């Protein structure tokens, strides 16, 4: 019975006059338990994985060097922060990420919007974008090291190029996907091009743009880590590389956790922003 009530608003879409908005909303409003449900189930999975991992590690079929347990990793993590070098590594990697990804957002948005809005700009830039998008940008790192040295500049360059193209391509797709019906309505009411861009095209592209950002984060982190693996003075990627080369496996995994955590945090932030822009979309719950 409950299930039927919850499914109703979706079925009621389409045609025929619906119930007043207030009743409809209250019909889909989830209980407290339902709100926490995704988090609880997710945490359970994490707990199960950690437990199994710990049990396997405890059996000591392999030495710690080969398979440390989660507890070993946690201890290494704490030690990492006690020693203090990690702060410099984090600051260095963070700076690279912030500058590289920040520049990618600005340049990617501008180029993506321009390529989506003006066909000729797209024609002009398509070969370059396609060239870089189909090349793993990381192969350019040796060149950047020649140009910029092993300081953060070479990493910023590779992060920038890594994140730039997913952002350009998704932003352009967002502009291009503007519904023709909406454009016709706007033209019919005599809207100027500037107004159409600001009030119709841009808001409609937001989900695409944020998807570009989320994909860009992945590429940017790859840039940080791989860049530092190859050549760096400081950085979390370098920390992982050195720990690995010196067989400090728990420390290496602690570094991995740090990187994964950053990635998850950034992705969640963009997901939240995306949700804020999507309040108009009816929630589909089962």
């Amino acid at each position: 019975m409950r299930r039927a009530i919850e499914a109703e608003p979706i079925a009621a879409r389409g045609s025929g006059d619906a119930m007043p908005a207030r009743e409809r909303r209250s019909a889909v409003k989830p209980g407290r338990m339902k709100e926490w449900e995704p988090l609880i189930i997710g945490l359970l999975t994490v707990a199960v994985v950690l437990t199994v991992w710990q049990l396997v590690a405890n059996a000591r079929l392999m030495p710690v060097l080969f398979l440390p347990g989660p507890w070993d990793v946690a201890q290494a993590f704490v030690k990492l922060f006690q020693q203090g070098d990690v702060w410099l590594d984090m600051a260095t990697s963070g700076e690279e990420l912030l500058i590289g990804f920040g520049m990618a957002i600005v340049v990617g948005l501008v180029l993506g919007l321009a390529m989506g809005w003006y066909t000729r700009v797209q024609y002009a830039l398509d070969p370059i974008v396609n060239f870089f998008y189909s090349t793993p940008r990381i192969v350019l790192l040796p060149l950047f090291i020649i140009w910029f040295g092993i300081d953060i500049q070479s990493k910023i360059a590779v992060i920038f190029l890594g994140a730039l193209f997913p952002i350009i391509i998704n932003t352009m797709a967002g502009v291009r996907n503007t519904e023709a019906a909406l454009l016709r309505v706007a033209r019919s009411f005599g809207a100027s091009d500037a107004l159409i861009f600001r009030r119709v095209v841009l808001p409609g592209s937001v989900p695409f743009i944020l998807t570009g950002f989320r994909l860009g984060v992945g590429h940017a982190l790859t840039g940080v880590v791989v860049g530092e693996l190859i050549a760096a003075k400081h950085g979390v990627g370098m920390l992982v590389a050195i720990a690995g080369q010196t067989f400090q496996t728990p420390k290496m995994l602690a570094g991995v956790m740090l990187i994964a955590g950053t990635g998850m945090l950034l992705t969640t932030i963009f997901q939240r922003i995306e949700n804020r822009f999507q309040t108009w979309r009816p929630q589909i719950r089962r």
Partner: protein
Amino acid sequence: MYDRSAKLAAKGVVIEYWLQRSHALFTAVQGVDLEVRTGEFVAIVGPSGCGKTTFLNAVDGLLPIAAGTLTLDGRAITQPGADRAMVFQQPGLLPWRTVLGNVIFGVEAQRTMGRAESIERAKQQIELVGLSGFEDAYPLELSGGMQQRVNLARALLTDPEMLLLDEPFAALDAQTREMMQLELLKIWSKTKKTALFITHDIKEAIYLADRVIVFTRRPGRVKTVVDITLSRPRDLRIKRDPQFLTYEDQIWESIQEELAVPAERLIAGVPAA
């Protein structure tokens, strides 16, 4: 001779499309002559693909005409203007804007009204189309009929001299469509707007209009004009009136002659309506 009582006058209007795919010029409308008088409700019916929507788009100023003259109050129509407003077949609402935000979009685009004033007046329009209490609802939370009410309110808020309606109820279910027709007539009698209504539904055309214009098959021309002298206000029962049925027969026969299309004229890849 310019008829002073004519709001909209079309003389020998030809509309052509360039078909990109087949690299051919395609004539949608070939020599349309018609007039719509101030305050009149005119409906255009015709076989599907006859160019009636194309003609309406030209009246709105979205499409250029290739030949003939098309004037509103004696001035040639070359582009969209605040003196006309279109109610579209697909509601075309911005999904991220509420009902209120969508209703003000028309005047916002035309830059004819300040924000505070437009919100104030939009609320009145929302009440007029029967959507009070839904100002803050999003389009995806509304039924098809309610979305079309928003579409109508958006057009009415621009206070046009002429209302253009492009099969606005075609996508609705039968009951909702009848209710919307009734409501449209109520609103029309209150606002006294000149209206040009496109439909393929003969009953709908007769029920709403003072005059029904039948288009030929493509390329469209005016085939017959039927004056509808049914008294107003009309309620839905009038659709079973003997006089109503006579009109329906007459118009249906006129359209039927056009439906017997020779096979070679059914060319694929031609834009609908």
